[in-house]
């Protein structure tokens, strides 16, 4: 069972639909108790970084950190991935989880911002192959829509270039994140979500 974290920002329907399609049951909740006890957590995020402030005030932030410490698989999408970094200049007063180093910043490019559309991901050299990207060839196309981007630091599993190179996905132990929207990235995205489900299933079988 996948627990989708609802923090009343943006829309969860697309992500839920994708899990349904993969035959994976999901529940939607904003209740910290249910988040703490989840088997697997997904934080779909769109919109402004400041909306993640609600996760702190509602107690969900603390519950997510507890769950991660227990080894619960956690996938953050878009702003959900950015939240795994220390913060974002989009909302400097809002704290991220600081699971990855650095701060998200607005694109520094003469190209149009937001970065909207299909772009390619390329793996970073890493000691361990990415589980999330298993079976996904380098240069696969995925769908992005964002104005802020995370830096390329330790834990970044793939990068994308749009005027500059930024973090497309992150991975460390049970924590995963994608800047792009796997639920909107056709077969490539479904494969990535399935990899997450498979990892979650393996872990709960142990």
């Amino acid at each position, binding site marked *: 069972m996948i627990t989708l974290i609802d923090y009343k920002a943006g829309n969860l329907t697309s992500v839920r639909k*994708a899990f349904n399609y993969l035959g994976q049951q999901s529940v939607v909740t904003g209740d910290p108790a249910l988040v703490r006890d989840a088997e697997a957590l997904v934080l779909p995020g769109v919109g402004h970084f400041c909306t993640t402030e609600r996760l702190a005030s509602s107690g969900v932030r603390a519950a997510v950190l507890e769950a991660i410490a227990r080894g619960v698989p956690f996938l953050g999408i878009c702003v959900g991935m950015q939240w795994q970094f220390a913060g974002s200049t989009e909302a400097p007063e809002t704290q991220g989880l600081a699971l990855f180093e650095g701060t998200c910043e607005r694109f520094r490019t003469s190209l149009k911002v937001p970065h*909207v559309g*299909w772009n390619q991901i390329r793996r970073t050299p890493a000691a361990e192959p990415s589980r999330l990207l298993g079976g996904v060839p380098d*240069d696969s196309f995925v769908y992005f829509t964002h104005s802020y981007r995370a830096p390329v630091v330790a834990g970044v599993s793939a990068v994308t270039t749009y005027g500059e190179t930024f973090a497309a996905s992150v991975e460390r132990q049970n924590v995963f994140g994608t800047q792009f929207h796997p639920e909107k*990235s056709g077969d490539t995205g479904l494969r990535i979500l399935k990899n997450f489900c498979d990892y979650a299933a393996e872990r709960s079988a142990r």
Partner: protein
Amino acid sequence: MSTGITKRIIACLDVTKGRVVKGVQFVDLVDAGDPAELAHLHAASGADEIVLLDITATSDARPILIDVVRRTALQLFVPFTVGGGVRSLDDASALFDAGADKISINSAAIKTPAIITEIAERFGSQAVIVAIDAKRKLAAEVTTEDAAVSSNVPAEVYLAGGRIATGHDAVEWAREAESRGAGEILLTSMDCDGTRTGFDCPLTAAVANAVNIPVIASGGAGSGDHFVEVFKAGCADAALAASIFHFGIHDLRELKAQLQREGIPVRLPC
């Protein structure tokens, strides 16, 4: 190799009474099929996005058909935009709940521009497309003021599916929509729509160069060359077409291969 973002090819489903239809310059509609089936077909054949427009919701003063949206969204895993008859934040919320990733607003945005900001603040700018139906002004109608603001491509914004002239200049309105929080502009040339004689490249370029958000060109697609032109001369970020895809005249992969040969980055293989 990661050179950057690709140009998007968007398949549009013009829907009325739950069926996909196609007309010429917004009239003489003929049936083209079931929205859910066609959306799936287009996505499978390489469309980068799907847009569903309920083209008579506004003129019939009725809400958009939520069931059709839900059914179409169910197994669609590329970005899905829905428009037509979105008048309020509640209308938009219902569409997002039904599976839309973005909503497109046209008439309501002209009448109540604050709605752009309202929806963008709740769902993010990436979820808000402002659709502009524009018609070039005849030389006799062009004022010196028009010439000053529109990069010499004066065009007037129409609403209610092209039925009502607004007096707004297309380039100016696109700028305002961006400043109010629109994430993309969907620009339809009413002069070219349904003619299959090519996009209005000068107008598309005028709008695309006036804003810093993606511009989707629409109206007039009839051949692969037209797409090449609108991405090169028209500076479009995406191009949308309806009828040429529905009736199978155009193979999407073939179209993308042509664009790639012309040096235009596209999602291929897809």
